[in-house]
Structures are given as C-alpha cells and as structure tokens.
C-alpha cells in the first residue's frame, strides 16, 4: 500500500499501545508489536485486537535489556521499522524505585539506542506530569525547569524525556507526546484497565478514606484513552509535521471541587472531605481508614495539591482539535461505566446507625 510504513510499537499490549496498534494497522501500516509476553492484544473495549488491513507482527522482547532482548532474527525485522512508537512504561504508583529506573529510564535508553542506530524517527510517550509539583501553566516547550517530581514515576519519566531530548539534539527525529491521566473512552467512559485514578475513586467513593489532604482548586487532567491514541498515531504517521514537537495529550481539567460535586450526584458514593495539606495528619485518621490511605491515597496526594494547567497550543495546532470541553459530563461517563461494570457501587457500609444521643458524639 502506498504511503504505508512499518512501525515498531513498544508496550503494544498496554492501554495506549493496543489502541495505537489498532489504529496503525487499520490505516494499512505494518506494526511490529514489541511484547514482553505472549497473549492477546486487547483493545480498550475489551475485545481482542483484530489487525488489518495492515499486518501485525509480534515480537517478544524486553526493553529493560540491551538491544531490547531481541533474538538476532527479530533484530533484523525490527531494523525494517520506519518509525518507533515508544509506549512501554510502568505507570503504577508505589513500586520500588528500581522498577521505574529499569523500565522507564533504562528501557527508554535502550529504545533510543535502537532509534539512533538506524536514525529511526521516534514518538516517545511521556507524561504531562513531568511538570512536577508546581502550580500554574505547564507549557509544551518546557521540560526541566528545576521542578520537584511528585513521585518516583514522574522522576523516571522526566529523566527519560531528558534522554530523548538529548537524542533529538544529536539529530534523532523525535516527537514527544505527553498524556495527562489516561482514563476511559470519550463517548462511553469505557476503560480496559481500572488503573491510575480508578483505585482512588474506589477507595474514596466507598468511604474507605473520608479525609484527604488537598485543595479544592487543585486540578487533575483526565484524558480519554482514544484521544491519546489518536494523537500518538497521528504523530507517528505525520512524521514531518510532528518532528520536534512536544504535544500535551490532555483532556478534561477537573478540580477537586468538580470531583466533589459530581461524586455527590451518586447516592451510594461517599464524597471525601478535602482538608488543607497543612492541617492533615495521616496518624489522626481512624484506624480503619489509615491502611487505605497509606496503600492507595497517599500515592496520589501530590495530584491533589497541584493547581496545574497544561497548555496545549502546539497540540491544538498540530491535530486541529483543542482539548475537549465538558469535564463534568465526562467524569459522569467514567463513573457510570464503573457502576455498569460493578467496579464501583455501594459504600463499604450502609447499615442504619444506631440512635446516638445528640451532641455527645463528637
């Protein structure tokens, strides 16, 4: 097919990787899907990916190993790639620091080695949260402005993107796509993996943690997975337009006030009380809440403090579509999907309380 290319996609079984792979093969491109293990590629809608008309070639590898751990035969196949889309990363929070180092930093180093060897244009999937812990507007042309990363994940992605920039300075054609918090599909709210913000929503709406340190005007940016996949695919297929750009793949900016107000629309949900971080003490939490706070909520504390806005001027100009509006309706779609699947539901306890004498209960 004229105009088609061969694209190596790392992390092709991941949420974004599978969607990018589906889009590329649907457009007639050949995808070399780098996979850490065997298994079906599953799309965000839960269905097995059916490639075509472009071909899908599975390649087993491990980005944390030099040469991506490829066999000599696979190395030859990978060398035919016209582009590399680097989606592979660990995005879970709370893992040992070396996991982020191995996959996100060293893994990116190895992908860069491959790209530099063949001067193969690279689309690197980073995160908008390389901006670190700060308030205000994060621009697409900024990277290291002395910010403090919010956690080990952000630190690793900042280091990885810095490596990518260095390679770009050495002449490698590079596009960086920085998604914010990737969540369900724009129209349906559907999501394959209940990761990132989802466990937080579960703990909070079930009332397992009722007091959270955060500012009501702190903002979380939730981007639909389809928007991210569209943008990454476009960056890979419109190489010349995309080269040198950093694109904020951002979506719906929702403040904690938005979360609070929308969660309140669901009778079974608990709405957390956000308290100023300076007034919060984990040790003052009730015994039943503290473990949930420690295991889940504390990993996301940093996002409840930032009053951050991601400028997406370059993205809007490149893709012709600015970040979507309608954050609250989108959040409802996400929550409704969670209810439909049973991921979210009733609070942890909804038995009527026994009568207590007024006033002395404080």
């Amino acid at each position, binding site marked *: 097919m004229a105009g088609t290319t061969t694209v190596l996609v790392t992390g092709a079984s991941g949420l974004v990787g599978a969607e990018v792979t589906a889009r590329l093969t649907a457009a007639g491109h050949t995808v070399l899907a780098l996979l850490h293990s065997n298994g079906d590629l599953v799309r965000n809608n839960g269905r097995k990916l059916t490639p075509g008309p472009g071909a899908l070639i599975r390649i087993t590898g491990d980005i944390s190993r030099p040469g991506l751990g490829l066999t000599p035969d696979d190395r030859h196949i990978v060398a035919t790639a016209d582009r590399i889309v680097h989606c592979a990363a660990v995005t879970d929070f709370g893992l040992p620091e070396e996991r982020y180092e191995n996959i996100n930093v060293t893994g990116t180093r190895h992908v860069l080695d491959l790209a530099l060897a063949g001067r193969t244009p690279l689309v690197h999937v980073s995160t908008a949260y390389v901006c670190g812990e700060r308030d205000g507007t994060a621009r697409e042309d900024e990277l290291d402005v002395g910010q403090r990363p919010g956690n080990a994940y952000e630190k690793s992605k900042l280091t990885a993107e810095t490596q990518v920039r260095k390679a770009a300075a050495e002449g490698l054609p590079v596009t960086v796509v920085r998604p914010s918090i990737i969540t369900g599909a724009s129209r349906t709210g559907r999501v394959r993996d209940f990761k990132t913000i989802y466990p937080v929503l579960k703990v909070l709406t079930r009332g397992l943690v009722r007091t959270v340190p955060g500012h009501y005007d702190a903002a979380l940016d939730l981007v639909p997975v389809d928007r991210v996949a569209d943008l990454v695919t476009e960056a890979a297929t419109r190489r010349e337009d995309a080269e040198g750009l950093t694109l904020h793949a951002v979506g719906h900016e929702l403040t904690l*006030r938005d979360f609070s107000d929308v969660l*309140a629309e669901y009778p079974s949900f608990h709405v957390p009380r956000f308290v100023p971080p300076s007034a919060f003490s984990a040790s003052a939490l009730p015994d039943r809440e503290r473990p949930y706070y420690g295991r889940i909520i504390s990993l996301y504390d940093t996002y409840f403090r930032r009053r951050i806005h991601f400028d997406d001027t370059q993205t809007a100009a490149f893709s012709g579509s600015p970040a979507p509006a309608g954050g609250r309706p989108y959040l409802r779609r996400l929550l409704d999907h969670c*209810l439909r699947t049973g991921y979210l539901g009733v609070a942890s306890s*909804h*038995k*009527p309380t026994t009568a*207590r004498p*007024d*006033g002395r209960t404080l």
Partner: protein
Amino acid sequence: MILTEDHLQSLLDKSLAELPGGTEWAVALEGSIAEGFGNSTSDIDFLLIDRSENDLPTMPSLLFVDGHRVEIRTRSMGQLADQFRMLEEGAKRPGRLSEDLLNRCQRLLHSHPLRGHALVDEAKAMLPLERFRRITVDWWAHRARQSLRHAMALLCLGETDESVDWSRAGLVQTVKSWAAELGETYLEPKWLPMQLDRAARPDVRDRYWELAAVAPAPGDVGAARDHLTACLAFAEDLGLTGVPWRTERLTVERAAGVTTWQTGERVHVIRGRREVFALGDRAGAVWRSLVLGRPLPQVLAASADTGVADPGPRLAAFLRYGLIRLAWKGGGTVIPSLPLAAPPGPVTPPPSTVQPLLSVHGAAVSGPDGIDLVPLPADRFAAATMALVWSNVVVENAVEDLTGALERGQWRVAELTARRALHAALRGLFSAHGVNPLPADFDLARRMDLLPPAARPIQARAEELLRRTVDSAESGDALLAELRACVALVRNTVGAGAFPSSFDSADTWRATLELGYDWLRIGAYLDAELPIEEARDLLASSGVQPHQAA
C-alpha cells in the same frame, strides 16, 4: 348533534352581536357537541376564523346566551397553520407534545362549520385527518406505556393502591389510543363510554368495562397484581407495544441536579441546588444503598440488605420527590401523567416543622424514616449550619479568653470577651432556628422575638449579662459562672446537637473540625455565604486545639 342547525345559527347570531363588528369571520362549532356528544349543560364552543395572518387573542370570551354558556375563540389562518406545524414537529416526541395543542387541533379537525364553510375546510385541510389520528394514537400509547410501567414499578415498591390507580390510568389511555385508531380522537376521557359505543366493537367495550370495574381491596397485593396483569394483557391485545411485565427493564437513574451530602451521620439530599431533604437513619440507609443504573428489583434487594424493613415506600417517596428517576431500558424516563391533570413532575412535600431546625450535624428529622424537606433554601441552610458550627467554636474560644483575662486581672478585656462569648452563643441559637443572615450582634438579644417562645427566657438573662461590668476577681468569677450557665441554658434550649462541647478533648475537637470541612464542602457546592475566611484560618490550624491550657 343534540342541537339543531337552526338553534346553533341563532345562538351564533346572538353571540356575534355581542362582539365588536368589522371582521368577516368563518365560524365552526367545536368540542363535545360538534363531536356528537354533549348534554344540556355542555358549553357551546364557537371557533371564529379570520383569513389574516394576524395574531388574535388566545384567551376565549365567555358569553351567556339563552341559558347556554358560550365560549368564543378567535384564530387567524396564520395561527392555525402555526398550530398544525407545531403539532407535526412535536409528534416526533409524543412525551413532550402538549395536550392543549393536540386538543386544539382535534377540535378544529372535528368541528362543524356554521359560516364560511370554504375557509373552515381550508383550515382543516392543513392536516390530513389520517395523519392526525396517527399522532393521537401515538400520544395516548406513549402515556399508556408510562402509566403501566409506573404501575409495575409501584407494585414492585409495595405501593399497591397507587399502583392500581396507575393501572387504571394506563387502561384508559390504552383504550383511548385504540379508539383513536378508529377515528375516535376526542381527548376528554369523560366521553370514552360514548366513543366505545360508537366504535362498534362490543368485545373490546365489554372487556374494558369489566377491567374498569375491578376494585382490588386496599393493600391487596395479589389482587393489584392480577389487575395489572389483566390490563397488560388487554393492552397487548389492543396492539400496545413496549409493556411486557419485566420489572428488570425498569432502572433507577440519576435525577439531574440532585446531590447527596453527609455530615456526621446525617444524610442530606439537595434537589436542584434549592431544596434540602434531611433523611432519618433508615431513610438515609436506603438512600445510600442506591446504585444508579441498576434494575429496580436489584435496587430494591440491595436496599433490603441494609436491614431496613420494607424499603419500597422509601424508594417510592424518593421517586415521587424527584430525587431519583425511573427509566425503561430502551424507552427513556418513565414520566406518568394524567390528561387534564396537574403537569407531571416531582412532588414537593410540606416543609418540616421539627424544631430546632439545625444542629451541627445538619437538619433535624422527624424520625428514622423521615424524608423531611428543610424549610430553608439550600444556600441559607448551608450558611446557617456553618454559622452554627462556627458559633460553637467562638463560644469555646471566648470562654477560654475570658478565663485568661480574669487570671491576669484584665477586667475590661474580660467584659469584652464575655460579651463575645454571649453573642456567639446567641448567634448559634438563632442559627439553630434557621435565622440567616443574622442580626447585628448588639441587636441579637432584642431580636429574640424571631424565635419560638421556648427561647424567650434566654433573652432577659442575656440582656442582663451584656450590661454586666467587671471590676474585681469576684465579679469576674460571677460573670464567668453566669455566662457558663447562660450557654448551658442555650444548649438546653436548642439541644446538645446544636451545641456540643467541642473542646472537651482532642477527639471532639477533631470531629468539630471535620464537621467544619463537611459544611465547607456543601457551602462550596451551593456557593453559599459562609464564614470562609475565619473558617479557613481555623481549618488550616492543623487541627491543633487552640487556647488549650498549657
């Protein structure tokens, strides 16, 4: 017709004589008499048609002619064309099609011309009768579905008698839809017997009357179920689709603008950002068990799991008050309605009369099953409760200050802090009764006339204490003791729920702070006037108990 042509022409002449002249009207008789129904008490309804495009008055004129009540409406051809156009546009969504519009069109299309026959015929030709029949069939069928689905839901919820009434409504609407297919489109249900007689289908007529005559005993679930089953079967036989007896197709959905806010253990539901419902413990537990989007039987089972006996009526009340919505899978929101009745929509119950109205935990309730409408607009409710929480804090704070001032012999400081404490207690007292915004501090004691008589004894005591001066340790200690007694009196009057002792321990202080945050959260949602700045100072204090003796 029950009136002869001559009689009608005579009535028309006399009626037109009472109207300003100058217009060449075409005239048609419309309504029940034109339809072939009517009796000696029926109105005579004349429609006067003007060829112009002008807008003529909508309000009819009422005349009394020869012992008849004569109603005269005027419409231009332009208005009639608009009327038919709106009907066609609205026909796509029968649930939203106005009953009045449908009625107006029906009456014209079935009218009897008396003058200017050509113009009357021209007006009628704007909408083919067949098309109108179809619109009417769909309109009644839509209503029949809504009523029968609602009846199913109510039966599921244990509201047996109400279910029977909606089954009956669905029965009438089904038969009206069926009759419309045969050309019997007159809307008013009271002429249904004559329509059925004219339809010349005695089998249908007899079965209808048989079902209409069924009167299940109040609370007889079995009989109500049998009645609904028979109505559904009859409806199906008459060609009504979309009403299989499948309650799992009924789902409980979010009602727009309804939010839930819990403070302490009290569940508040705010409707349309305006009205606050305070739920008693059992009603609150049922509410909290609601998972939106789930089938009604599943929702009912989940609410039964809360341990609340017979949760159905509570769910039915939520539905009645518009706090939740019921939908039929593939059929949208279930909105039952009766023709010629109040428009469908949420019911608003009378406001709660429980006193005092508020505590720091929220609104008072009438009992564990209460779904009580707070007699305050939502923003005032939030503002008053926040003021109440805040006044608690200030009382405690000021009493601590007073103690410190007395220890150091600062008599004038002691006087001022005593007044501050007293004013704060009075602010709490007013807030607990829902007064908001509050009178100025110096006016609080005088404005006790706003409060119920039970609060009056506080007035004299407060006025006396506010005048009190301190010039010695003895008079200071006496003031402190009496101030504490007065605060205790306020607490006794409004209940400890309004005035807990926030500073008794670290735990009670932390709980007070959490209540403060809870109220801030609601206040933010409502954009209410709250003592935010002061409260933020408090809330940002890391939960440290202020003014605690070292």
